[in-house]
């Protein structure tokens, strides 16, 4: 079953649920109250503001809370005569004594193109003339010249770009409800990219959640970037690899808004796609490796003036070829990032295991991974019974046993089960007895 888009699933049900925009809310409610009291100052309200800041949501939530029937129409449909008639008919009819009151919403009126849809604008004006119900219009840019006559008929209510913290707090709530584990920097990153557009932020979050239940910064970068055409890494690579001069290559690098680490990953992934000659391949990788070395130094010493050299070396990847060749190259997404996302569970088990061993042997997790786990694997693959005894003594989880024993894990678990049920001695008393008898 396809999942409901979260922007629908989580749209506000009450006016207070609409994030931020207190000023706009107050103005809107005041205008609506005057309407419902029968004395509208303006027959229509024009809600304007950047995309995804809550214009439509406010109207929907208000309709719910005031128990108004919402007659919604996208303005781009407005050129069809029958639709106009339908709305006009509704608008002109005063609701009966017991019938529900109505509110008419015309979304995205700036989507009407001025000349081609001349008729639509006239129809809206006509509607405002006859309506007996509040009419709400929304637009991103109310100052569009084609809306001038319409603007005069409307009460203008401005919405502000949403602040980052407001977006983050909504994302957090969704994460909780969807039971996602999320890193704060990941949400911060999504919110930053959204530039005040809550709708796109929620869409991004859902896109990321479709690949993993653990929202980390790396995965977000991988998934969210590909959504933005202006940050298109494929374009950056194409420009970089077709550069003849270093200044072109540097321009290509700086044309991209990917951060330095991601640029590095994209280039590293695609060098072998671009260069097949071993000499060129090596020259390109060595240039990138040098750039990477500079970046390591920058991070370590915070000497950002080294960045210029890092960029020089990164640009040098472009001139690694011996003579220019023109051919179409298909670039690919950095596999490292996908692999990390895919192997998350295995890596978590391995890291947890390393921690157990590290505290058992008083060493670091890194040392446990490189020095101890390999030998444990040998034991677990070769001797299930002995492995089960170790699993018992080290208190390993089933997943850890699976990780160590590979496809022989069933045998180890069988022994483990037998030991656990049949043994009266706990591991601790056993150990103590042996130490004493020594």
């Amino acid at each position, binding site marked *: 079953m396809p999942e409901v888009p979260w922007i629908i699933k989580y749209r506000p049900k009450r006016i207070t649920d609409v994030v931020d925009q207190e000023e706009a809310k107050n103005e809107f409610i005041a205008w609506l109250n005057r309407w419902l009291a029968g004395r509208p100052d303006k027959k229509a309200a024009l809600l304007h503001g950047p995309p995804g800041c809550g214009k439509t949501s406010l109207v929907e939530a208000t309709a719910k809370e005031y128990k108004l029937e919402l007659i919604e129409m996208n303005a781009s449909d407005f050129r069809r005569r029958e639709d106009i008639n339908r709305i006009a008919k509704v608008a002109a009819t005063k609701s009966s004594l017991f019938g529900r009151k109505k509110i008419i919403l015309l979304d995205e009126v700036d989507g009407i193109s001025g000349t081609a849809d001349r008729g639509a604008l006239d129809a809206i004006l006509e509607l405002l003339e006859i309506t007996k119900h509040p009419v709400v219009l929304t637009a991103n840019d109310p100052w569009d010249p084609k809306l001038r006559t319409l603007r005069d008929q409307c009460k203008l209510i401005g919405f502000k770009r949403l602040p980052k913290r407001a977006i983050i707090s909504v994302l957090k709530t969704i994460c909780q409800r969807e039971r996602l584990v999320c890193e704060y920097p990941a949400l911060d990153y999504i919110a930053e990219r959204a530039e005040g557009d809550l709708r796109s932020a929620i869409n991004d979050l859902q896109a990321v959640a479709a690949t993993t239940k653990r929202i980390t910064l790396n995965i977000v970068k991988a998934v969210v970037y590909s959504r933005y055409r202006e940050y298109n890494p494929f374009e950056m690579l194409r420009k970089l690899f077709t550069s003849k001069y270093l200044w072109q290559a540097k321009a290509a690098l700086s044309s991209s808004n990917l951060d330095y680490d991601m640029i590095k990953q994209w280039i590293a992934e695609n060098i072998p796609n671009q260069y097949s000659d071993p000499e060129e391949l090596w020259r390109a990788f060595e240039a*990138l*490796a040098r750039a990477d070395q500079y970046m390591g130094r920058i991070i*370590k010493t915070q000497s950002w003036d080294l960045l210029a050299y890092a960029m020089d070396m990164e640009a040098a990847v472009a001139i690694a070829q011996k003579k220019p060749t023109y051919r179409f190259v298909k670039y690919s997404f950095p596999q490292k990032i996908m692999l990390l996302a895919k192997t998350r569970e295995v890596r978590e088990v391995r890291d947890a295991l390393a921690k157990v061993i590290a505290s058992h042997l008083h060493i670091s997790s*890194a040392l446990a991974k490189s020095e101890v*786990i390999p030998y*444990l694997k*040998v034991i677990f693959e*070769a001797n299930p019974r*002995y492995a089960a005894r170790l699993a018992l003594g080290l208190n390993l989880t089933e997943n850890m046993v699976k990780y160590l024993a590979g496809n022989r894990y069933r045998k180890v678990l069988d022994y483990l089960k037998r030991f656990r049920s049949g043994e009266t001695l706990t591991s601790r008393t056993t150990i103590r007895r042996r130490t004493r008898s020594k």
Partner: protein
Amino acid sequence: MSVEAELLWAEKYRPKTLDEMVNQEEIISRLKQFVKSKNMPHCLFAGPPGTGKTTAAHCLARDLYGPEYHRWFLELNASDARGIDVIRTTVKEFARSIVPGPVPFKIIVLDEADNMTADAQQALRRLMEMYTTTCRFILIANYPSKIIEPIQSRTAFFRFTPLKPEDIIARLKWIADQENVKYDEEAMKTIYEISEGDLRRAINILQAASALGGRITVEAVYKVVGRAHPREIREMLKLALDGKFVEARDKLREVMINYGLSGLDIIKQVHREIFSSEMKLPEDLRVLIADYAGEVQFRLVEGADDEIQLSAFLARLALLGKKFKV
């Protein structure tokens, strides 16, 4: 059926008291002086892995405070504790808490202290001064030269030397006897050679070899070592030398992700492989590869990206492989 939960032998047979330690005699006698006078300075234990540094710290604490010494003993690993802030908070809490007992000071062990940046070490120095009336620090390091001067001058220095072959072999035999495992004399020598003087590694190999079942022979030891070192590393090198860069890089990713090995772990194993008899390479090629491996290792220590540096290494191999027509 009598079944006992088993532990790793490196822990099971770790000496409990200073008396049980069989080597580093000079160090042990100095530490025993501390026990006698019930006082000690801040200490710096330095030496190669598996020479008894951590064990000595535990034994010292136990000899001072008895089997319950853990109540006054904090062990931190600088590689695991993320950043000096974590260390600072943990140390602060530990130093502040009051644990009743006839104990003049608590002991804080900071393992792999040489992995800390110079800045973090400066902060550590301040911590040491701040809690010097209530706590003693034992810093443990592989390379004392990576510990900053002010800390070195505030600590009593103990240099742990690599264990003598006869010490390691004697210990291995003793463990084997405790476990009722039969062994060939030659097998023990082989374990020593592979362990490079690292007793922990030697004991791990011994335990794995005994788990294969039956007598511990030279073959069993080689079998363990062969299986424990990821085959993928050799395969990766061969693919790269064969000019198959993309496949080699896939192997690299496999090793990094499946085994969780760091770039440094990998380049060190690569270095071993280059000189192994399994890799049939011209001598001058070996030198060229080793030279570049050293360069890559240096860059990784400096903080460069594992995958990018190792990719460059593989690209280098692909080029050298073509030139030498291996």
